[in-house]
């Protein structure tokens, strides 16, 4: 075993102290992105190796968790090379317009206050299923914002896009999740199908220009 220089050893120790608490977050994210425990482990390992190599570029005092997640996201994108293609579908002209009225009022009520543990477990399962049906990009958005509770600014840094884009991508991802959830939940009889009107979706562009006029 070659002698480690003191500098290398100190840096290594610091890295381990900082990275160890983030392992569950990295793995959770990796598992959701790759959908495979084997691939997830490889992805986390590659992420840590890259992070360690780039450690001198990490700015002390900034968010280490966000920094690690950014490296992991890049590693994932580089390896699978799918995200950019999906993002085009997701944000581009093929994107399904999503308004605020995806869910009926009755569905909403059924999902807002699940009654009893059995109901909660059932909904949890359906959320998982709905989540799995999302694209890579949408899954990443929901994970970063709803599960990891990162700020839009941090998410923007991680996925490498402006904050406004985070907002619209996140909105779209959540609406997709809700739409899918409603379909499953209604089919299973967890919630009743609402007979009240579903509001017309507002095209995002129209809304943006209207908002731009206002401001």
């Amino acid at each position: 075993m070659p002698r480690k220089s003191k500098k290398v050893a100190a840096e290594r120790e610091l890295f381990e102290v900082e990275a160890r608490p983030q392992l569950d977050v990295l793995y959770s994210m990796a598992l959701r992105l790759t959908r495979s425990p084997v691939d997830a482990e490889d992805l986390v390992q590659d992420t840590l190796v890259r992070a360690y190599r780039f450690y001198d570029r990490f700015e002390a005092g900034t968010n280490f968790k966000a920094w690690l997640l950014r490296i992991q996201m890049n590693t994932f994108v580089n390896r699978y090379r799918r995200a950019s293609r999906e993002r085009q579908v997701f944000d581009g002209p093929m994107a399904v317009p999503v308004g605020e009225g995806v869910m009926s009022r009755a569905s909403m009520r059924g999902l807002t206050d699940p009654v009893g543990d059995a109901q909660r477990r059932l909904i949890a399962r359906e959320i998982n299923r709905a989540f799995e049906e999302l694209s890579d990009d949408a899954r990443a958005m929901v994970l970063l914002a709803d599960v990891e509770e990162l700020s839009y600014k941090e998410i923007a840094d991680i996925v490498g896009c402006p904050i406004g884009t985070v907002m619209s991508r996140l909105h779209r991802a959540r609406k997709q999740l809700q739409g899918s959830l409603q379909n499953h939940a209604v089919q299973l009889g967890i919630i009743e199908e609402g007979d009240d009107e579903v509001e017309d979706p507002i095209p995002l562009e129209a809304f943006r220009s209207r908002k731009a006029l206002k401001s």
Partner: protein
Amino acid sequence: MSCKLVRRHLGALVDGELDPATQIEFERHVEGCPGCQEHFAFEASLRQQTRDSIGGVHAPEHLWGRAIRRLDEIDEAKAEHTSLIHVRPMRWRQTWPIAAAAAAVLIIGAVVGLPESTEYQGAGMLQDVMNLHSQALPSDVQAEAPQEVARYFQGKTPFPVKPAQFEEPSMKFVGARYIRVGTRPAAALYYNHLGHRVTLLVFQSPEIMRNAQHTHVGGRELHYYDVGGNVVTIRQHGGVNYAFYGDIDRPVLFQLAANARVAY
């Protein structure tokens, strides 16, 4: 203030990500609007349920250990590289993205000057020995006749160097090169075994046998080291060490090394 506007930004509102003025304005609207209140409650509740349903995944126990071992390898590589290079124009960290260029620097470093350290032995030296093979330096002498090779090394090394003789006709001698292991002169003999490179390093390092593992192959005792997933077998005759290693499977290598005639 329209309900549509508020509901369009409900996600950001629940996240508290609107600019402060808008955030306050929207919250005020929600307080006084039962419809938006319901939407708000749903959005917040679903957020919580999503977190509970999808979050809470724990990494497998062994994952951290696995990652740590990879980091160890990086540190070891770093330590090796710094011990090899006399003049370092760049820090290792900065050189890694241009790995190819860095590797070229290392090769030059390895040949031009190895550190004159009394502690230079064991793992560090073995890694260098291993590197000499992976670098595949060109031969100084490419001769068929063993005596030409022996003549080439006369006066260069303090011990006679002759190509080893193998029982296996599949072992072909390719060439030889004068090198240094640490500060000591040595000879690298290159062979080809069914398309795979095998290196025989002839050098002097009496202490190297001390920590070697040993086994018996065909009634002959054979010493060897595991070096980062590779195996280096070492024999010692008359104060000279003969290290065999290469891109071949361990049992084949053991067989070749054990049966080779080195001092004749």
